[in-house]
């Protein structure tokens, strides 16, 4: 039955009411009939009484009349009087209570005849007897009387018999009506019970049961089990309830799953973003991105590729569920793979790849997303999974956030190395001009002065022993050499010869020898280093020793330098008074840029009363970069 719940309830209830009411109506009708039958029966009994009354009255009258006729005594007439008075009213009464038409006719005739007996015979006879008229006591009169009385008796008997018969018939009718009523009542009861039961079953099945089922599922849902669903068997409102419950549960489950996925994604993105913000090396970031995407997409292999100009790609980062046959750093051909598609279109792509190169044989579901750096296509991230469990839908769009981060990281690294290169160029330019100045000094002025001095000596040598010019010339010569020495000092400060010719070791030893404060050397450098590195280390050492001599009140200085794992580590530590706030006060601040331009660090530690330590850490070569 379709239709709203209310409608159905109303229909069912009305049907039930109709059935029950009908049953009761039949019952009432039957009861009414029984009642009527009872009335009729009662009436019948009264009629019988009334008729018997009449007969008694007549009998009394006859008897007393006869008695009077025989005895002539008035006392016999008393009952006759009574009877005479009563007979009329009894007859009337009888007539009035008769209901059967035939009986009514009989009652009327009886009344007529009885009244006739009374008025036409009995009273006249009695009057005549009172007057002692002889005919009154004659046999003819008494026979007449007896004849009349017999007729009346016969009528009464007839009446009574008929009344009896009627009564029996009515009794039978009443009985049968009563039986019918009982039957109807019984049937009505059964029908009502059945209909009520059916109604209950119907309501239970169609309304209560689904509602209870849905309520139970709602309990499970509320408890956290988002897989709870109801089977949709109802109709109308119930069906709506079930359907809506299911879609609500579906929605909740979907949202929770989606939330979980988003959370995973955000965590992964945050992890990668942190690495980028910390300025971690590119290869670390690329490997992290490959791993996070691999886990999110539930892939078998992910690769972060850089497109090369010759149509191949370099694997810059890789992650595999088990193992990847291509290690990081290798070049692979991208042929017709999803990476090639991304390379052409600059858009995310999804492909099915059959036996792609550089992978175990088989069919793969592959997705790829482009990495754009500064508006140009740099490379792509690809994720592959065996076709039996393909890559999760819309992975290629979700990878977009990661590729953005990767693009930023690459741009950062590029900017960083651009910055480093720029600083290095500035420092190199500075060094270059220093060298030029030094060379100009050396090749130019110093050389000229010395040549002058030599020329002077030549002249001196050609002079005779006792020449008076000898002494002033010698003085001149000495002054010239003095000037040369001064120039030498300037030149040494700009760029010491021993550093260029001998390298850092001899230069540091020369510094140590010249230091006013004793220097304990600990050198572990066995080869020449890049000129920029040697210069930076030398200038830091020279400046530090100058500071020690000027400010520290130290008794000795430790100077150690060593090459370790492709880095130069130089430490100058004195046991003086320390307390210098930062490197700012000393001339070291100018050297911080020089050291950092090489990608190194300069640290300055000067706790009060505990001496000063200057440390530099400079990388010696450029590591292979992706």
């Amino acid at each position: 039955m379709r239709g709203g719940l209310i409608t159905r309830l109303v229909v069912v209830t009305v049907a039930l009411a109709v059935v029950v009411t009908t049953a009761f109506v039949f019952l009432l009708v039957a009861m009414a009939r029984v009642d009527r039958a009872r009335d009729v029966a009662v009436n019948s009994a009264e009629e019988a009484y009334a008729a018997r009354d009449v007969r008694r009255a007549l009998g009394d009258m006859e008897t007393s009349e006869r008695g009077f006729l025989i005895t002539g005594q008035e006392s016999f007439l008393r009952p006759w009087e009574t009877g005479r008075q009563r007979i009329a009213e009894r007859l009337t009464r009888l007539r009035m209570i008769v209901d059967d038409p035939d009986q009514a006719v009989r009652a009327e005739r009886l009344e007529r005849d009885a009244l006739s007996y009374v008025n036409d015979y009995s009273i006249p006879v009695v009057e005549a007897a009172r007057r002692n008229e002889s005919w009154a006591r004659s046999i003819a009169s008494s026979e007449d009387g007896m004849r009349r009385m017999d007729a009346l008796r016969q009528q009464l008997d007839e009446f009574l018999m008929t009344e009896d018969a009627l009564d029996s018939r009515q009794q039978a009718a009443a009985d049968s009506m009563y039986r019918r009523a009982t039957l109807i009542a019984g049937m009505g009861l059964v029908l009502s019970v059945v209909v009520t039961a059916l109604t209950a079953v119907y309501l239970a099945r169609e309304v209560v049961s689904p509602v209870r089922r849905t309520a139970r599922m709602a309990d499970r849902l509320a408890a956290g089990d988002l897989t709870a669903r109801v089977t949709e068997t109802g109709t109308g409102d119930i069906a709506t309830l079930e359907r809506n419950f299911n879609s609500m549960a579906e929605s909740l489950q979907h949202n929770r799953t989606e939330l979980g996925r988003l959370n995973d994604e955000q965590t992964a993105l945050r992890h990668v973003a942190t690495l980028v913000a910390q300025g971690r090396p590119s290869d670390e970031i690329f490997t992290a991105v490959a791993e996070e995407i691999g886990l999110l997409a539930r892939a078998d292999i992910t690769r972060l590729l850089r497109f090369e100009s010759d149509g191949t790609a370099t694997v810059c980062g890789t992650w595999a569920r088990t193992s990847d046959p291509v290690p990081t750093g290798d070049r692979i051909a991208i042929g017709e793979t999803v990476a090639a598609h991304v390379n052409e279109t600059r858009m995310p792509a999804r492909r099915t790849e059959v036996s792609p190169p550089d992978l175990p044989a088989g069919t793969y579901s592959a997705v790829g997303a482009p990495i754009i750096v500064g508006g140009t296509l740099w490379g792509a991230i690809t994720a592959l999974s065996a076709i039996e469990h393909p890559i999760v839908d819309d992975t290629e769009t979700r990878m977009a956030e990661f590729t953005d981060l990767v693009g930023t990281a690459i741009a950062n690294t590029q900017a960083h190395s651009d910055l480093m290169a720029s600083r290095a160029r500035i420092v190199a330019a500075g060094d270059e001009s220093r060298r030029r100045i030094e060379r100009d000094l050396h090749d130019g002025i110093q050389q000229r002065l010395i040549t002058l001095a030599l020329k002077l000596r030549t002249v001196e040598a050609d002079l005779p022993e006792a020449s008076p010019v000898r002494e002033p010339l010698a003085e001149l010569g000495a002054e010239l050499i003095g000037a040369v020495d001064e120039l030498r000092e300037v030149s040494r400060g700009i760029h010491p010869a021993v550093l260029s010719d001998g390298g850092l070791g001899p230069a540091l030893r020369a510094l140590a020898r010249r230091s006013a404060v004793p220097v304990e050397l600990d050198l572990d450098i066995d080869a020449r280093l890049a000129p920029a590195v040697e210069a930076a280390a030398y200038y830091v050492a020279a400046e530090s020793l100058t500071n020690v001599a000027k400010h520290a009140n130290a008794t000795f200085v430790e100077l150690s330098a060593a090459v370790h794992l492709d880095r130069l580590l130089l430490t100058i530590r004195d046991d003086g008074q320390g307390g210098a706030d930062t490197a700012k006060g000393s001339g070291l601040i100018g050297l911080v840029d020089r050291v950092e331009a090489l990608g190194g660090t300069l640290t300055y530690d000067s706790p009060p009363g505990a001496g000063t330590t200057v440390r530099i850490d400079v990388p010696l070569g450029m590591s292979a970069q992706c």
Partner: protein
Amino acid sequence: MDSGVADVRCVLVDDNPGFLITASKLLDRQGVSIVAVATTSAEALQCVQEQRPDVAVVDLQLGDESGFRLAEQIVNGPVPSQVILTSTHSESEYGELIAVSPALGFIAKEHLSPEAIRRLVHPHG
């Protein structure tokens, strides 16, 4: 004049021609004889081979070339010869490099003189 001792035959090596002229004039006397001059390592080695001098005076700042290297090449070369190092820089600026070198010694350019050369070549004579 020296008695019976031959002149010290000397080759001068410096990348500055002006200096070579002045130094030649100054040094070519008093028992020292400048037999050749050179401005590069290659020239210097050739001169040494041809002239077989007693000593070569080598400037440590030979343009882009290293005077120390040339000194080693001359001392250990096919025609061995002594070497005296010189420079516009002072000796102390070179630290231990001079002590390590196979050269006889170092004379700062402004102190160059025939006596100085003779003293290094013939320390007892």
